[in-house]
């Protein structure tokens, strides 16, 4: 069961926080008037997806270091989203700070991190460490 939980969580995170931003920035590259920003975004997420693939390879080999690398990329997404929200907030001079929007974006990665680091699913990695 732990194996399926780890694989399921990692794959969902990879799609939501790796493939999806890459697909969105690639689409932006096609329609954007400012291709430099869109190209930088595609380059950033291409590197991020490659790092996540390497991390996933390590995770499936039950290596905990892969998990650290994987979540570094996921939280990079949350940090970039937060930065974007803050920039938009200051530029638009909105009255309410988008605190809940930022927190909402961080909830899923935090739940995923909790599942893989603190729930019983972490036994998946302890099996590797005992060998």
């Amino acid at each position, binding site marked *: *069961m*732990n194996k*399926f*939980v780890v694989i399921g969580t990692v794959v969902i995170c990879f799609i939501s926080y790796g493939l999806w931003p890459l697909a969105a920035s690639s689409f932006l590259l096609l329609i954007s008037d400012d291709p430099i920003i869109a190209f930088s975004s595609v380059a950033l997420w291409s590197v991020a997806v490659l790092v996540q693939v390497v991390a996933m390879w390590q995770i499936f080999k039950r290596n905990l270091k892969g998990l650290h690398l994987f979540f570094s990329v996921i939280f990079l997404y949350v940090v970039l989203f937060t930065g974007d929200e803050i920039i938009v907030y200051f530029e638009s001079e909105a009255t309410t700070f988008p605190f*809940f*929007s930022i*927190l*909402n*974006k961080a*909830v*899923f990665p935090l*739940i995923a991190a909790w*599942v893989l680091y*603190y*729930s*019983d*699913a972490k036994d998946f990695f302890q099996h590797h460490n005992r060998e």
Partner: protein
Amino acid sequence: MSKCSKCDTNISFMSVLNTPNPLKVKCSGCKEPIHMDKVTGGIAVLIILAITIPVLINFYGSENYWLMIVLPVVAVAEVTYFLLIKFGMVKTKDAS
């Protein structure tokens, strides 16, 4: 109250929260697996899923979905399942 058959420790909320498999909970005392009765546990899990999944689907796309919908619904589902174990409605395999 359902207890571990090996060390007689009460099943804790964290044990229920931490398990990926609701029918197999790890004892917080001796770390041995406590198997739930498949009939009572299975029915409880099915009822909880039958309520939570439509709620999650219905509210999908609403503002701050993860924070305002998913987190409270999952918390309520976990607490409900724990209370069903605590009050003996979901039995452990040895107790059933």
